[in-house]
């Protein structure tokens, strides 16, 4: 795994990906999620992709061998989106108001067709008279395709010791 080989650029296969391209992808995703545009969000994934949120005691173990908050394969990810679009997803109806900040973006070569991207996030969520803050780190795998980047693995790792009172992961973190 190598860090950007010329300043701010990582080469995957024959394609050079700049950090601004990765940042734009993450910023666009944040806007899509804050606007509750879940079909557009799903379109950011390649088929077969996964979405994971490990528990707060996470120590690099596999989700296949441990408990998780979210351990979605492609089927479950689509079921989650379908649910969130339904008026019967009571935990998110009315939807949480969210505001996301993404920072400290770093890009690494993962394989011949994928990048590993790490970033910090702060997600503010307002609902039911409460204002929560979720802080953590993204560790994504992004497939590099001819028409842009796609999530292969979207992983949000919480920085908290436990989810605080009233916090939950019924929206996308």
């Amino acid at each position, binding site marked *: 795994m190598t860090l950007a080989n010329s300043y701010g650029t990582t080469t995957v296969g024959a394609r050079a990906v700049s950090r601004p391209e990765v940042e734009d992808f993450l910023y666009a995703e944040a806007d899509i999620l804050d606007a509750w545009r879940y079909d557009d969000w799903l379109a950011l994934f390649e088929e077969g992709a996964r979405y994971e*949120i*490990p*528990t*707060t*005691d*996470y*120590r690099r*173990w596999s*989700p*296949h*061998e*441990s*408990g*998780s*908050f*979210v*351990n*979605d*394969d492609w*089927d*479950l990810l689509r*079921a*989650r989106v*379908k*649910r969130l679009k*339904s008026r*019967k*997803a*009571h*935990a*998110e109806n009315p939807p949480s108001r969210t505001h996301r900040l993404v920072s400290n973006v770093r890009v690494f070569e993962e394989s011949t067709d994928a990048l590993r991207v790490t970033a910090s996030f702060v997600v503010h969520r307002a609902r*039911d008279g*409460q204002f929560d803050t979720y802080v953590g780190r993204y560790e994504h795998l992004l497939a590099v395709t001819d028409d842009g980047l796609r999530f292969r693995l979207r992983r949000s790792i919480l920085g908290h*010791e*436990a*989810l*605080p*009172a*009233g*916090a*939950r*992961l*019924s929206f996308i973190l």
Partner: protein
Amino acid sequence: MWDASQPKATAPMIVEDWDRLTFRVNREAYRSEGIFAREREAIWSRHWLYLGHETEIANPNDFVVRTLAGRPLIFCRDSTGEVRAFLNSCPHRGTVLCRETQGSSKLFQCFYHAWTFRNTGDVAAIPDEQAYQAGEDFRAAMRLRAVPQLASHEGFVFVSFNPDVRPLLDHLGEAADYLTMIEEQHVGGMQTLPGVQLYSVRGNWKLAVENAMDGYHFSPTHNTFVGYLRESGYAVTDDDQYAYNLGNGHSLLVLTGHGGRISMIWEPRFGADERVRTQAHRAEMAERLGERRAHYVADESHILYVFPNLLLFDIEGLSIRQLEPVAAEQTDVRAWQLVPRDEEPAARALRMKTVVSFVGPGGLATPDDIEAYEAVQRGIDATAGDARSGLDYSDMSRGMLDEVKGVQGRSIDEGAMRGFWRRWVDAVGIPDGLHSSGERPASFLEGREMR
């Protein structure tokens, strides 16, 4: 606000009316800090409480720290292999002794004045010990404070802060066998895994108990999850399923129509390989346990409530959920996945994915339960202190006619909740806490006959 020191006979906690067949719970029970303080004393300081599973501290010297009933504890296996629970507080001046959340250590050293203790509780070293005149007596008096009672059943470890608590098996009663059934699911028994869900809800702990014993909410609250199951080819039903009061406040929801069970009841979303594994495992169970026992262990889902702080969701997979009330309106929740010790990787992966697709604050179902009890907690502010008679009460009357007839209550009725509340009002010891009018049945069905 209702004052726990001066209970008002005019506002009973529970009002049963056997003419109208209504059962009402005073909403102060969910919001009063006075009642919360009384529960701490009468329930959480007197009864057995679930502490943790033996497999969390699998090896000698393993420890985890955990707050139970508001008290910081160390749950550990000492160097001889014995399971122990100590107050996580230095006997010298009360400092939190172990500030790690988990690990492995023969010794616990207090950072403040460096007193050091063995994981058997003995004092290992007190710096400059000769300054204390009492010598060995001083040392003996400064051992780590053990929780007064500790006992284990099928790997589930319970403690009590009451030295005179009755034996654990007396307390567990009929619930004990359901813990045994869990251990019997697989050759080699069960173990917890890392990856503990730690979260906190803005609701009274009893709302979480009600929700778990409430089959009535499943279809409306979990509409999207039911839709997901239906689309994957599983027909959800509430027919012919029952809720049992097991006595001592424990209860059991037996569900057969809410989903499959990994390695025991196959459903299409589990995939073809799992079907083969399920057939083989189910046959092995019949061989090992006998068909009748295997049927009760394998062919039905159980939601077991062990009074006051343990919920076992033995459904698609098995989750242990521990309730830790922190205030009248807030409850910390901890959930562990309990899995067969010997399980092939593909089955384990399917299990982990399936279990958390339902349970936990990131699942497709539990968030709607959390929404429900948080919305109740906020909603009942509307009637607080309302002088109009009976308004500040919640209704749990469904299925009372079955209680009159002595017929087993259905899972979609509210009989298990009534059983819980009757036990609760007894346990907190509020004088005239239950008001009953009309002809009350001489007794209520308790336990479950397994034929």
